[in-house]
């Protein structure tokens, strides 16, 4: 089988860039909505902050997996 196209160099960094798109959008939405919620209802700050950080942690995990995978499967 002949190769149609081949990619060499630091593919891991490109992979991380691609992996960061989704979580980037997600984290933006989470904190945007969180700040809006706090502005609307400042007395619920504790609960909102906690859930905001929880959502942030879940979204961020995807970007971090994208960061680690090139180290594991790279070279």
């Amino acid at each position, binding site marked *: 089988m002949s190769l149609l196209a081949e990619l060499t160099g630091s593919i891991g960094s490109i992979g991380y860039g691609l992996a960061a798109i989704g979580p980037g959008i997600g984290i933006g939405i989470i904190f945007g909505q969180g700040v809006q919620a706090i502005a609307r209802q400042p007395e619920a700050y*504790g*609960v909102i902050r*906690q859930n905001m950080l929880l959502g942030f*942690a879940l979204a961020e*995990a995807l970007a971090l997996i994208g960061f*680690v995978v090139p*180290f594991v499967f790279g070279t």
Partner: protein
Amino acid sequence: MSAVLAAGGLDCHLLSGCGFPAPGAEIFVFQDIFTFTLFQLEFGISKVHILLFLGVAIIVGFFMYAFRRPKLVPRGAQNVGELGYLFIRDGIAKETIGHGGEKFVPFLFSFFFLVWILNFFGIVPGAQLPVTSIFAIPVAFAVIVYLVWVPLGIYKQGFFGFFKNMMFPPGVPKAMYILLAPIEFISNIFVRPFTHAVRLFANMFAGHLLLATFSIAAFYLISASVIGILGSVASFGLAVALTGFEAFIQALQAYIFTLLAAVYIGSALHAEH
């Protein structure tokens, strides 16, 4: 310092012809300081283990000291200890687990402060290694949390009730369960502990690598050129600023790790409703 040596040696600067010695995963590998054999098993003690035991000793020592003679009106170290305890009890256990959360405060409390101090070693001069950036350690923590909440859920909800509540959340059209049940099963049983460990590990790994990169860049750019000196100063300033940022991330990750442990325990105690 060892990172600089590992990456290119002391003579490697901008105009000396060697490329930028970017740090990689090798800066997380440490030589054994000494080895010993116990019950025919080889044990090697490196910097990681020393910091790990030091972290445990600091936590145990501080809280033993803080609560050695508890007084009704707290003073000094007892104040700090009680503040930490109240933070975990009111901020995490009561809000996340709710009813029945009181019992898990010591568990969450130990985890929060242990993870925090192990992360914090990353910016302590002389230590300069977040112990949790060695993958085995967050894995061990995540396994402990996993071994707490899965048996707890089975004990509280019954074996079939536990899996039924996990895989068949109410309020979903019946046909969706064909798709939803396997996804929920995989995400709860396999992905949860994996991401729980990877989240902590990767944050500390990435942060340490970032600090190493800018520190090495500050060192590498020292050369007989204006741009090199300016770049070196900027890089050093950035390394200092990132150290402050890391301090924030370390506390946040310890909080998130504990918060997620509390969420998992809460989901085992009370079925979804």
